[in-house]
């Protein structure tokens, strides 16, 4: 048990910097850096939003990919982060960076709710309970918050991310945020905490028997998910410049699952690869197919049928190929 986990941990941390992977990583970074100068503005903007979604996918990955808790309601944390950030900056006039910090922190605090639910419910039942959270949140936002603050069904306008409208600069902010978030997740994954998360995922009873405080670590996993999801929600709101109950829709909860599953859940690079592979083509295609654009995310979600084991994705296969590891050695 421990030996396989240790070896997997080694794959994650040390082997990430063997030669082919480093070259791939560096070339990706260079492409990402020069991209805004090569591509038209609307594609740059698509990538900005995709990077923010990638942060969301990374956040789902912590509690569900690493710690194995079935979470179908990441839109709950995303929505709380987004609404908090928009309301604090638009209504109370805080600077945008400060409201993003508040949004992330409130997202983290809201992670306590699914975290506590995960102590009592497991597997499918946890999924059912977390599925209800965003629906409840949108009912409360639309009806209970005053219209002049939260805007009801129409939502409110949020101030732009950098005070002025600058697509290229926003792209770089999103890129840097994605980089920082993935380093954050990578540090967690290669720490003792990440190892504990994975033990809880593999077998919770074994984790308990080996003296891990599973309750604490499950809540911690949801707190970290909430922190990153709140952060991506706040960024999203200021890039799109409006916030409405759409940010709590089930698509926001489900798409990260597909992105992670396609890219490979339980890894750092998987969610990022999955998001870029799936979200960029669909966002670009949406402009050309008119009336059917509404069904594109649904069609995307149907890809879930092709996920082999629910957590082993295309992205991970790609990276393993780069590292020269055969699939049989992995499991």
């Amino acid at each position: 048990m421990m030996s396989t986990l240790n070896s997997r941990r080694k794959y994650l941390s040390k082997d990430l910097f063997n030669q082919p992977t480093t070259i791939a990583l560096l070339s990706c970074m260079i492409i990402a850096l020069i991209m805004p100068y090569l591509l038209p503005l609307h594609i740059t903007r698509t990538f900005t939003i995709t990077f923010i979604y990638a942060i969301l996918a990374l956040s789902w990955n912590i509690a569900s990919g690493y710690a194995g808790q079935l979470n179908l309601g990441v839109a709950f944390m995303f929505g709380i982060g987004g609404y908090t950030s928009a309301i604090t900056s638009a209504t109370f006039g805080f600077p945008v960076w400060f409201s993003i910090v508040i949004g992330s922190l409130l997202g983290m605090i809201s992670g306590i709710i699914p975290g506590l639910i995960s102590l009592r419910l497991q597997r499918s039942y946890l999924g059912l309970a977390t599925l209800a959270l965003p629906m409840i949140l949108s009912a409360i936002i639309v009806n209970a918050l005053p219209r002049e603050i939260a805007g009801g069904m129409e939502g409110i306008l949020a101030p732009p991310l950098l005070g002025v409208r600058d697509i290229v600069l926003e792209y770089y902010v999103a890129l840097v945020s994605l980089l920082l978030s993935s380093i954050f997740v990578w540090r967690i994954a290669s720490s003792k905490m990440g190892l504990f998360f994975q033990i809880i995922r593999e077998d919770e009873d074994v984790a308990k028997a080996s003296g891990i405080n599973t309750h604490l670590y499950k809540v911690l996993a949801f707190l970290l998910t909430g922190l990153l999801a709140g952060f991506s929600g706040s960024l999203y709101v200021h890039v799109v410049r409006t916030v409405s109950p759409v940010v709590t829709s089930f698509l926001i909860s489900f798409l990260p699952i597909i992105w992670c599953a396609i890219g490979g859940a339980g890894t750092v690079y998987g969610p990022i690869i999955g998001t870029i592979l799936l979200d960029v083509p669909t966002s670009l295609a949406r402009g050309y197919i008119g009336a059917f654009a509404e069904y594109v995310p649904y069609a995307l979600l149907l890809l879930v049928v092709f996920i082999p084991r629910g957590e082993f994705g295309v992205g991970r296969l790609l990276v393993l190929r780069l590292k020269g590891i055969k699939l049989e050695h992995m499991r």
Partner: protein
Amino acid sequence: MILQILICLIASSTYAILASGFSLLYSVGRMLNLAYTVYYMLGAFLLYWLRVDVGLPILPAVILSILLVTIIGTAIQYFIQQITGHELIMLVLTFIIGAIMASVISHFITAGVLYLIIPSVIEGTISIMNVHIPLQYFLTLSAVLFVIILFWIIQFRTPLGTTLRAAAQDSEMAVLLGINPHRVKLYANVIAVFLAGVAGVVVAPMYPWSSTMWLHPLLVLLAIAIMGGLGSFYGCIIASFIIGFAENIVVFLIPGAAYLKDVVPMLLALLILLVRPQGLRGVKI
């Protein structure tokens, strides 16, 4: 007061019907089918379509819409049953199928209309202790109660019900005893979809129809599943009556808080879980 109790009773028994269908699907097919409440919405929609757009009289419209829901729903169920794999896949996929069906239904005929008012089956009111109560409420209540009793009879007093319960308790043993598992699944699907369709058709005239109509019953079903009401007939009934009464009483007591209807079921389920970690019936499902 009478009106309030009547509304509570109707809501609870509607949830009871839906929950028994959902639980039948769960116990026979081992699948939490989140698309289930769309059949309820489809029933209501078909009743509107047949009554208003096609212009059929009441009785044929009701019978035809129940029949159509059963046929369409069983066909869709056939495909949903083929899904196997990780439970995450099942939950996501069934919810997505539900969302697709709901958006197709609302695109199909009601272009640009947010709410439809479905005409009552019976017009007129009756006055009890100076409260005017629409006759429709009594009709709905009696129909809903009739369906619950019918389902009870089917499940506990007929050979078909014995077969269904046997397959639910131990499918391998049921196969050894000569029960065809595919046929049992088919029967379970037909009965479950029929129950949802009846609930939709009967309740439809009481609420305005909207494209998000399936979400609230779904929330209630999720809460019932978490409270531990799935898998047994009485568990479903108890859990649905708790939720039906609680949410309506909250709405009556707090003015301007109709949105709490969406919040109460899950909150109640989590509270019950806090007090009784083993669920309502004390049996892990």
